[in-house]
């Protein structure tokens, strides 16, 4: 769907990281975790391209979708100036999201901004009564957005930070390995770190369970036409926007 919609909330969560809510009942009713939307809301053609953002929360009852993004360039800097009432163009939902979680329990493992697309998955698993184990890492405590929401929807949350500002020293991939030994997991979902992705892949192969990764890329069109956002997979180049952004972890060449 390509439509214009209204910004309902913009707030700086921690320095440089923002929460953006958009009222769009159509997209909120169609979207599922792991998908994304192409968004633009500035006059003229500079920046030229729309910006791809993963859904951080999909609230079909309120007709609202929520994004969390980091200001990294001109596009996101302009985005952070949008205020409630601002009209934006939204193309979405796009891409293949995460396959639906299956009982008894799933693990999500993510780092930094890579935890953003995992939250709606965690929330939907909780709604379905499926167990969730969350393994989250970041350079510092501020890099973990909405940790409280992960806490309230997970059976257990493991947190590690590089600077030790939150959680004990260590790496979440080892936490995941330990939990996997004592808990029956149906799948692992990953985002935000190649190192974590490799660890999750190896563990999933050992456990013989499926594992999925959500990839990020600079995108041109978001719908597969421009072939600009490819990643390397076992079958050659795949389009992150159209074939992904969620791939079977084992298919991706890291």
């Amino acid at each position, binding site marked *: 769907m*390509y439509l214009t919609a209204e910004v309902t909330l913009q707030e700086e969560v921690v320095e440089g990281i923002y929460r953006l809510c958009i009222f769009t009942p159509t997209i909120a009713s169609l979207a599922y975790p792991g998908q994304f939307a192409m968004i633009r809301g500035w006059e003229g053609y500079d920046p030229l391209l729309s910006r791809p953002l993963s859904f951080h929360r999909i609230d079909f009852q309120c007709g609202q979708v929520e994004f969390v993004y980091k200001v990294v360039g001109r596009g996101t800097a302009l985005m952070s100036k949008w205020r409630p009432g601002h009209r934006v163009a939204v193309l979405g939902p796009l891409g293949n999201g995460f396959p639906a979680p299956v009982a008894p329990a799933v693990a999500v493992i993510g780092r930094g901004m890579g935890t953003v697309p995992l939250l709606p998955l965690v929330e939907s698993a909780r709604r379905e009564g499926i167990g969730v184990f969350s393994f989250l890492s970041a350079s510092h405590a501020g890099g973990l957005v909405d940790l409280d929401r992960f806490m309230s929807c997970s059976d257990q949350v493991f947190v590690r930070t590089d600077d030790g500002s939150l959680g004990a020293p260590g790496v979440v991939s080892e936490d995941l390995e330990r939990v996997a030994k004592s808990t029956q997991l149906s799948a692992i979902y990953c985002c935000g770190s190649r190192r974590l992705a490799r660890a999750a892949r190896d563990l999933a192969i050992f456990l013989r369970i499926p594992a999925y990764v959500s990839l990020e890329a600079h995108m*041109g069109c978001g719908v597969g036409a421009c072939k*600009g956002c490819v990643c390397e997979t076992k079958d050659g180049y795949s389009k992150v926007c159209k074939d992904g952004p969620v791939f079977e972890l084992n298919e991706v060449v890291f």
Partner: protein
Amino acid sequence: MACTEVVLGPLTLKNPVMPASGTFGYGEENAGAFDPGELGAVVAKSVRLEPAPGNPPPRLVETPAGLINAVGIPSEGVDAFIRDQMPLLRQTGTVVIVSIAGSTALQYGELAARLSDVPGIDALELNLSCPNIGHGLPFGQDPGLLAEAVSAARGNTGLPIIAKMSPNVTDIAAMSKIALDAGADILAIANTVNAMVIDIWKRRPVLGNIAGGLSGPAIRPVAVRNVWRVYEQVKAPIIGSGGIVTWQDAVEFLLAGARAVAVGVANFINPNAMKEIIQGIQGYLDSQGFESVEDIVGLAHTIGRSQ
């Protein structure tokens, strides 16, 4: 209502708007905003003789009001294209233009031969100007290779041939004449402009292919000037392209001498762009009292001279 039909030599379009090759899906990549059958023509992504993966990522980098791409023409190869893509293209119900890209001049001939008898193709566009494949100059930048490539295609097909020219030349009109003499019927003016971006922190080029082709509003005035010059120097129908985002941009190209326009990167940022451009051209003609698109083709030249 003004007539939007345009005649480009052997090719008649119901309106002058088409996508630039590789920027708009006629099948599953279409964002579903409108029916591709409403377009003057659909243009497929350039097809190659053999399957090719395209360039390593990153393939895109954004620049001020522009986009540099170094996609490198990934292709499923002509056999798979005919089998998988042609049924979708035929279903669109409008003029179908198939873009071809050879690695050698002779391959343009082979591709033309393979596609000539395939039902549902109305014209071939020769991509002579992709800056992103091979190691030497693109065909469109070497007069000898350009003539060879167009001749090779002409010798093997009766379909109308569109020569998509490179803007990265000293004199695009002279190169256009070479393409016409070798058998092209229509000129597409022009492809992307050679460009690159360097990451100053990594101290290396951003694109996997080092350099690429710049498109978008950043190149529009360059493209308008190229259309203007070719219109003055060469007697052949022109499809204008380069940074067309709005109907006003399209009208500018028509006034410069294009009989049709190809819309590229605008499709990425507004899936309705081409439909809005078709409607906008119609509105401009009606409000300005013109009876057809043909009335404004090259009109800026005559007015310029009379004053």
